[in-house]
């Protein structure tokens, strides 16, 4: 039997949680002894090579592609973990959740100077290329789309939190994090 496999992805996040994974410093060498990375931005594998033991999800779901990737992770991962506040409760992107989608588009793309523009967009049109994933009406926490097995809160979760949780899961121990490793900020 080979090493357990680990997959990671960033949905509607800022990659800060992935930075926090890297922030385990030289313990990443130990992590590589414990696991093989599968689909992940860290090794740039784009598709699952087969069933994976642990999936780390950063970010919530703000568009249809996020939902597709999240469901793909659920299908392929035995244990799925929400890493960080965006995955758990939508985080900063969820600030748009009580603003109608049209107002968000107007703010970003309108040529009306009172509303923006946030980007140079002389046509005033909202981008509508079929390649672009459609935005959802609001940002959804991952647990509202698929079943999530563990939550690691934080913005980002401290490197020690991610490390302790990984080691516990990979060595078949209960994930019992000390007081100082559960923080929401």
């Amino acid at each position: 039997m080979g090493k357990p496999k680990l997959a990671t992805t960033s949905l509607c996040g800022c990659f800060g949680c992935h930075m926090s994974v890297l922030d385990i410093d030289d313990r990443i060498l130990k992590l590589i002894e414990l696991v093989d990375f599968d689909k992940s931005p860290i090794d740039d594998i784009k598709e699952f090579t087969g069933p994976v033991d642990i999936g780390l999800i950063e970010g919530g779901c703000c568009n249809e592609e996020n939902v597709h990737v999240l469901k793909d992770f659920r299908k392929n991962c035995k244990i799925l973990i929400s890493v960080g506040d965006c995955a758990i409760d939508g985080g900063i992107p969820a600030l748009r959740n009580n603003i109608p989608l049209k107002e968000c588009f107007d703010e970003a793309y309108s040529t009306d100077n009172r509303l923006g523009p946030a980007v140079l967009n002389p046509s005033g049109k909202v981008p509508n290329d079929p390649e672009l994933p459609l935005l959802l009406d609001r940002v959804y926490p991952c647990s509202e789309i698929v079943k999530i097995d563990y939550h690691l809160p934080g913005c980002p979760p401290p490197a020690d939190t991610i490390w302790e949780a990984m080691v516990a899961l990979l060595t078949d121990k209960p994930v019992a994090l000390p007081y100082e490793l559960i923080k929401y900020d």
Partner: protein
Amino acid sequence: MSDTITLTIDGVEIQGKPGQTIMEAADAAGIYIPRLCAMDGLVPHGSCRVCTVMVNGRPQSACTQPIAPGIVVDNETDEINAIRRDIVDMLFVEGNHFCMFCEKSGNCELQAVAYRLGIAAPRFPFQFPDCGIDASHPDIFIDRDRCILCGRCVRASQDLDGKDVFGFVGRGSEKRIAVNSDAKLKDTNIDVTDKAVEACPVGALLKKRVGFAVPIGQRKYDHKPIGSDIEQNKGSL
């Protein structure tokens, strides 16, 4: 009539004085009962229900229930902590609690109680309500997204400041904290030094231009759970 009352909390016999609530007697004995709407110096409100304990097998709020001879109180049990967890989970999903950019984070009692209860994430669907901000006052602002409707500012303004600045409007999920004029916070006689401003357990009522004054790692609840100060008195009676 004797001037002490003997009661049992989690199997430990403690002494209290007549007229004390269960919470007051427990505090004096070094036993922490989690709370949000209760605060030293304010008349108990009994509204948040986080201090729910079992008194002879019946749920009661420890901040309002007076002690009586021989009562058996359960505080730290799995059953009661599950109730408390549900309450705190609901408070999180019924507001917009963005801890990552809240100035109160690390000193917030809601967050601290959640940490103490071991909550990694709320288990209910998030509501993302539209609550509104009142930043009209030059020194203080209200962010209703963070308000848990504990009523501490209402009581502190009435009872400690003698001003009656705050009140509740609306019902159910529409309930909000409001100022007693029809207008904005700037139209009231609130002052930045008022006790009501300090009374807020969360980041709903904050002083302007304070921001993130204390670095992460040195804030009130960064290393020690809420209630540690009370538990230091354990066994002193």
